[in-house]
């Protein structure tokens, strides 16, 4: 009951999805299973939020180090949650003015939108933006042309960095058949054209091989799960 049933459920759902590709009449079943999955994904968001709340409440009750920050987290969490679930400050939909809850929870100007616009957006955007600084620091500290391989990596990076800006055009615009007719055979060497070529040919080669490798890995792990050979997701008893 505790282990066998989940194994059977996992195999059944997985194989329904696979078989549906080959047996069109059970297409509807595979849609149904996918819809259940989608609903469970939504429940998982609720589970995640509740878990976060629980962890930080415990942090506070234990007076663990930095518990004050947990208070900040919980206050912002609850404020956003109440504003969103309660549709606070949201007008009813213009089509259904008699239904108080008919408005959209994202209404511009509502408290929930306020949290999105003035807290979520600047925070998430800036957290990703500061990576630009760390990548600059890493460029200074880590990239050394120690051997051919590292040299190839750096050389490609230089060409791409130049070729995807105006610098590439400015540096090699003299390779122009108008300057010398013989240049018509060498326009491919202009940095912006080299970049396009590297991306379309060499980059495609590397990523295609990686893609094939990853695909084989995923197919074999999926099969192991569906056949019940990999049971790690069940955890320990």
């Amino acid at each position, binding site marked *: 009951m505790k282990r066998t049933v989940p194994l059977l459920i*996992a195999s059944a759902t997985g194989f329904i999805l696979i078989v549906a590709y080959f047996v069109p009449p059970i297409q509807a079943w595979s849609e149904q299973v996918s819809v*259940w999955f989608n*609903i469970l994904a939504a429940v998982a968001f609720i589970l995640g939020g509740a878990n976060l709340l629980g962890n930080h409440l415990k942090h506070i009750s234990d007076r663990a180090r930095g518990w004050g920050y947990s208070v900040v987290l919980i206050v912002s969490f609850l404020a956003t949650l109440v504003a969103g679930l309660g549709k606070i400050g949201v007008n009813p939909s213009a089509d259904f003015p008699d239904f108080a*809850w*008919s408005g959209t929870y994202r209404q511009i100007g509502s408290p929930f939108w306020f949290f999105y616009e003035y807290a979520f957006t600047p925070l998430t955007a800036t957290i990703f933006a500061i990576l630009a600084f760390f990548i600059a620091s890493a460029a200074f500290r880590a990239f050394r042309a120690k051997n051919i391989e590292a040299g190839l990596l750096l050389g490609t990076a230089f060409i*791409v960095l130049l070729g995807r800006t105006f610098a590439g055009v400015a540096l090699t615009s003299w390779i122009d058949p108008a300057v010398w007719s013989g240049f018509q055979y060498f326009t491919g060497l202009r940095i912006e054209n080299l970049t396009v070529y590297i991306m379309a040919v060499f980059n495609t*080669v590397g990523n295609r091989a990686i893609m094939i490798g990853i695909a084989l890995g995923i197919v074999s792990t999926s099969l192991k799960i569906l056949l019940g050979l990999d049971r790690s997701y069940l955890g320990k008893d």
Partner: protein
Amino acid sequence: MIAGMKRETLIWTIVMVLGAAGLLGRAFFSEQGMGREYVRAVPVANGQWTQYDGATYTDYLRAEQAQPGQTVVQLSLPRTVGLWLAAFFTLAVFSFLWGDNPFYRIAEHVFVGVSAAYWMVVAFWDVIVPNLIGKIWPGVVQAWALPGLAGPEAERNLVYVVPLVLGLMLLWRLMPAGGWIARWPLAVVVGTTAGLRLIGFLQGDFLAQIRNTILPLVVFTGGAFDFWGSVSNTIIVVGVLCCLTYFFFSFEHKGIVGGVAHVGIWMLMITFGAAFGYTVMGRIALLGARLEFLLDNWLWLIDPTGRRVVATMLFGLIG
């Protein structure tokens, strides 16, 4: 050395204080100022409510010019506070570059709290209500949040009791005992993911990539021999084989196999170089957007989208 450090810090502090003082002075003593948000009041549903759309300083000045003392476009105090809060959060995250500090910590925790709650709210209103409750109790949802629900989509479908039960079982994880109960919905999630990915990757990434690599090595375009097309295709076919040799031959890479695998490594290095270049490009773009927010929306130092065009024009006339 320590004396040098102190002098650097001193110079830096002076620069920062002067810069901040200059900006604040500009905000409070210049005519244009900085960091204000305006809204336009729009009546909805025959004037039963007012909706406040975002407006620019330009809109405000135009409206004032047309009719002084109007109330349609007005300064929004809450949104102005919000804008300054957004600027504070932006600077608080940037302060991490100097070193870990309480401002960064506060910003980080606000972010986690707000985003977790945001996802919960979205999951509830966009999925749980229409796709679960609305399927089992359509009447309830119609009378409450989705009065517009109609047609075949508004018919009760009791199959959805299954995901309801599974969802409740998943939430059982929050209980102290009976952890195994959540394994059933988890099995649905794992089984579905495995089934979907098996076919998706096999078809889209494995078979299709092999198919995409079977290319003519001698290319003719419009009846004429295409030299560079042929070279490209040859590099792609040979290159992919070299990389795969490097990945999959588990015996020692020596002799011809070793050479082939080495070419594969070179191909991969070029790939990683390109990936590095693109990553740099992406990160810088994000930083650019953030700095533009600070300089444009908050400090009003630049105005690339013409949010305050009339302002400069008018003050040019007056001044």
